[in-house]
């Protein structure tokens, strides 16, 4: 059994922070469970399809190639470099987008587990992130193939994309905690976020480059996603490590994690009453 042997709760001494940390700790320890649950999520999504989760790769490939074809024609840029640019950026965006939008519904979707068992809330956060990471892998395989087939020159600095990925994962946890708590209580926020993310897809340099942005160029850097995409994409596409973007992302992440964790700690015990 994984429950603590003694459960003590006193409404006047809530010890929210200690309990929230214990929640994350217990959640991490259940890695076997959330990994299997994440696999089940994907199996269920692609139930009775022939290709199963390979559809993730297929739709990613079709999108990246189509955008690259249209984009290079419209702007007269070379096809292959632009394809690599779109593929890598879109890969990163998909993960970021999922960690925001899936974060919104993380507790709502798992209501029938939360209301029936004494499990750490973080379990469902890790389940969701594991699922998104697997999906990232399916897209990543295609991105790697595109990089190889287009003969793109990879520098050693491309490895700097890995710490960027780590930072994505950390922010994904914060994002699930933050939006998960908020949306379970105020359902409208999910709609606002979904709409915002759709718009932000076009406002972030993903299917166009900052050079093509014209007058918008100076505004780009007000969009936090610009920096987050940059730290992952620049090492692979341009072979450079964008230190100023890193500085922004690290600061942003620290503040975001702090806010998200505080919100989660404070409202954790209320979530179950919000369904």
């Amino acid at each position: 059994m994984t429950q603590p042997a003694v459960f003590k709760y006193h409404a006047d001494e809530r010890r929210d922070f200690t309990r929230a940390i214990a929640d994350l700790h217990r959640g991490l320890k259940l890695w076997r469970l959330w990994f299997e649950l994440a696999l089940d999520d994907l199996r269920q999504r692609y139930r009775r399809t022939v290709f199963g989760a390979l559809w993730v790769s297929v739709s990613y490939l079709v999108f990246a190639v189509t955008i690259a074809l249209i984009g290079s024609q419209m702007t007269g840029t070379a096809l292959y470099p632009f394809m690599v640019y779109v593929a890598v950026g879109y890969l990163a965006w998909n993960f970021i987008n999922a960690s925001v939008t899936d974060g919104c519904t993380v507790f709502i979707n798992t209501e029938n587990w939360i209301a029936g068992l004494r499990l750490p809330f973080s379990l469902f956060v890790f389940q969701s992130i594991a699922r998104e990471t697997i999906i990232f892998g399916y897209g990543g395989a295609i991105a790697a193939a595109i990089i190889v087939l287009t003969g793109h020159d990879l520098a050693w600095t491309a490895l700097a994309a890995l710490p960027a990925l780590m930072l994505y994962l950390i922010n994904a946890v914060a994002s699930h905690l933050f939006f998960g708590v908020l949306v379970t209580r105020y359902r409208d926020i999910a709609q606002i976020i979904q709409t915002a993310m759709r718009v932000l897809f076009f406002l972030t340099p993903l299917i166009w480059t900052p050079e093509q942005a014209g007058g918008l160029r100076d505004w780009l850097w007000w969009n936090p996603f610009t920096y987050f995409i940059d730290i992952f994409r620049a090492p692979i596409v341009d072979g450079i490590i964008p230190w100023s973007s890193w500085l922004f992302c690290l600061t942003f992440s620290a503040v975001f994690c702090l806010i998200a964790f505080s919100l989660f700690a404070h409202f954790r015990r209320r979530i179950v009453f919000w369904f």
Partner: protein
Amino acid sequence: MVSLTLNHVSLTYPIFDSNTVEDSPDGAGRIEKRKHGGLGLRALHDITLSIRQGDRVGLIGRNGSGKSTLLRVMAGIYAPDAGAVLIEGQTAGLFEVGLGMRIEATGRRNIILRALMEGDTRDEAEARVDQIADFVELRDFLDLPVRTYSQGMMMRLAFALTTSFGAEIALLDEWIGTGDKNFRKKADARMQEIVANAGIVVLASHNPELVLKHCEQAIWLDQGMIRKSGAVEDIVRAYENSGDS
């Protein structure tokens, strides 16, 4: 030492779906204004109780009287607004069929998931399947999605998942309604086993017969408060004479 102690526990549910409800059904908790605005349903009010190892306790009361809420407080799922809860021992709750299960997944898969939840490794979980399969007797249906099961079959699986992992405190909500005679016998035996191993069984039901059959003590809930508690015969008699049952 296994025990369950509640000290002056109160719990009010927030109501989000309406701001005009005033009148609740007879025997159910009252509607009240909440401290931070909005309406709330006072599901439990000033509950103090102590259950010790080896006890079999029945919770009786009308619909909405707080039985299920109290069970979830005992399971550590609901944190009360006031009062203290002390649970010594591993709890396992069976509240509604389907909770804590993936109905799209097979029965076998659900057993594995539950085993992983209890901290088993993958191999231990696989080994657990046979043992639980014996108990639920679903045969090849174990490889069908749970959503294809009948109510009774789902119940059997849910009961087995709840009681097969060495829980010391079993919290059961109206569980015996479905399930055929053969399974009820097995379930009875399983409950006896838990109590014999110095555990606790708490059974909530609005059916006095059921409580009388399975419990030695009873707690009568009315509007989220303890109306009376003591030996099961006395409580059930009082409950039946009140005209509530």
